[in-house]
């Protein structure tokens, strides 16, 4: 009987997009990190690179631990997080309504979108000296840089999210007698919300970059400021440690927003 059946292929062929289980996914992801850290530790331990340029994982952790013990790490994170919060929230509360209007009104789109597109391609970094001239080097300048770096991106992404509202959903609202404002608030914005949330999540990541840019140039506190000070004293271990902390904060925030999005927009999936 087995002889008549076609021989089973003993080896699985590689297939595009074959899913792997969640544990396998996690293990592979962690594995990549571990591998890189091991290579780094080896390179440092074997003295292949001057420790002045590349301190080992132990030194970096030690520098961070000392910084955490004397409280500076937490103070730096706090100051930087506050700047992000203000700059990002300011950008968001402006970008969502303006982007929505751009998405629903061709006239507003014509008035603003080419302008926003133009500004978006101006390098924010180049504005740092100008913002210092405009508003000085105190908190306002940090908010302004973060705002500039995120608002123009957000507004275009929100407009795009709004534009993808299914036309028939709006038509349906019209046949139910909804006013323009009701169509906007009950159909267009809720429909675009998952995509708007995604836009916010992505731009929040960028906000961290602009924060450090602003703090590297002119600041007396914050993560970027600490990095410039460390550079002055050749504390490469502290610089690397802070860069990692920045990366980690970004990753945690991103995952938190993903999780919140999955919860808020659970209705999109066929199961809930």
């Amino acid at each position, binding site marked *: 009987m087995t002889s008549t059946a076609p021989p089973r292929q003993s080896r699985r062929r590689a297939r595009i997009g074959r899913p792997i289980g969640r544990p396998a996914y996690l293990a592979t992801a962690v594995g990549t990190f571990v591998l890189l850290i091991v290579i780094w530790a080896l390179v440092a331990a074997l003295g292949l690179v001057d420790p002045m340029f590349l301190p080992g994982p132990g030194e970096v952790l030690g520098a961070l631990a000392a910084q955490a013990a004397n409280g500076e790490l937490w103070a730096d994170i706090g100051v930087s997080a506050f700047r992000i919060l203000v700059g990002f929230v300011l950008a968001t509360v402006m970008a969502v309504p303006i982007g929505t209007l751009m998405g629903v009104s061709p006239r507003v789109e014509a008035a603003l979108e080419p302008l926003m597109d133009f500004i978006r391609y101006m390098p924010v970094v180049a504005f740092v000296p100008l913002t210092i001239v405009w508003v000085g080097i105190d908190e306002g300048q940090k908010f302004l840089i973060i705002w500039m770096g995120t608002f123009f991106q957000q507004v275009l992404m929100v407009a795009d999210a709004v534009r993808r509202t*299914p036309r*028939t*959903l709006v*038509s*349906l609202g*019209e*046949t*139910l*007698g*909804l006013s323009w404002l009701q169509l906007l608030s*009950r*159909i267009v914005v*809720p*429909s675009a*919300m998952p995509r708007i949330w995604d836009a916010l999540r992505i731009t929040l990541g960028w906000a961290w970059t602009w924060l450090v840019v602003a703090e590297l140039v002119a600041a007396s506190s914050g993560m970027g400021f600490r990095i410039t000070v460390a550079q002055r004293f050749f504390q490469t271990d502290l610089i690397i440690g802070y860069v990692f902390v920045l990366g980690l904060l970004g990753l945690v925030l991103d995952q938190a927003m993903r999780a919140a999005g999955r919860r808020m*927009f659970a*209705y*999109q*999936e*066929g*199961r*809930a």
Partner: protein
Amino acid sequence: MSGQDRAASAGAAAAGDAAAAGDAVAAGDAAAAPKLKIAGLMKRFGRGDRAVTALEGVDLAVAENEFVSIVGASGCGKSTLLSLVAGLDEPSEGTIEVSGREVTGPGRDRGVVFQQATLMPWLTVQQNVEFALRGEPGLSRGDRADRAREFLRLVGLDGFERSFPAQLSGGMQQRVALARSLSYGPDMLLMDEPFGALDALTRRTMQELLLEVWEQHRLTVLLVTHDIDEAVVTSDRVVVMSPRPGRVQRIIDVPIARPRTLASERSPEFRGLSDDILALIRDAPRTG
């Protein structure tokens, strides 16, 4: 059942308020006045050399509580005609009157069922129906919930009130859309290939449901479909349209007795009508 009837009459009364003035004027010949009157309708898309005439010289009258289908080859403008009646688009020439008033835009007197179910994905089944009831004057929150549940029961969806649209099959989603359109008691129901996206088996079930629901809640229906059997089994009259530009080619009476079921399709009378209509569409003149 009596609860549903009450709900329907309450809805009709609410929707009928605005129409009362027009009815009073035409009180003398109320029986003769059509629910829907289309005269000299022309619709052109684009301008100049690239203009396409989708509809030309369309005249049609539909009586109160009449069920009329529109069939024709693709591109005959049947969906355009429906969206003009819905008020979602404007005619280039001619007039459309519903209950004696000219259509100038979409309104609650005309409920529309689209080809895709167009449910709000972020609302539950129950909330989707209640969404349509928010515009009803004099309905409390509790009334809205009761009315939504009644109409969901009517389309056989009791027990699914708390589901989200993404959890439902295409046929069930279209049932929700039908319940929603009926719940607020519009004068007319406009359906644009409502079962066109469903598989053959589900489509049969939905046609059966539509027949049942219409027997219980008589209202004026305009159904656009490419399924000739569906048109014949549901309708009092079938409007056959010819393409390029879309015109009314012929209007066919369907004298099959009501109430009908899908079993009516087995009668020789039905097959004869269905074949005649198919022949009309195949041999449609292709002018312009």
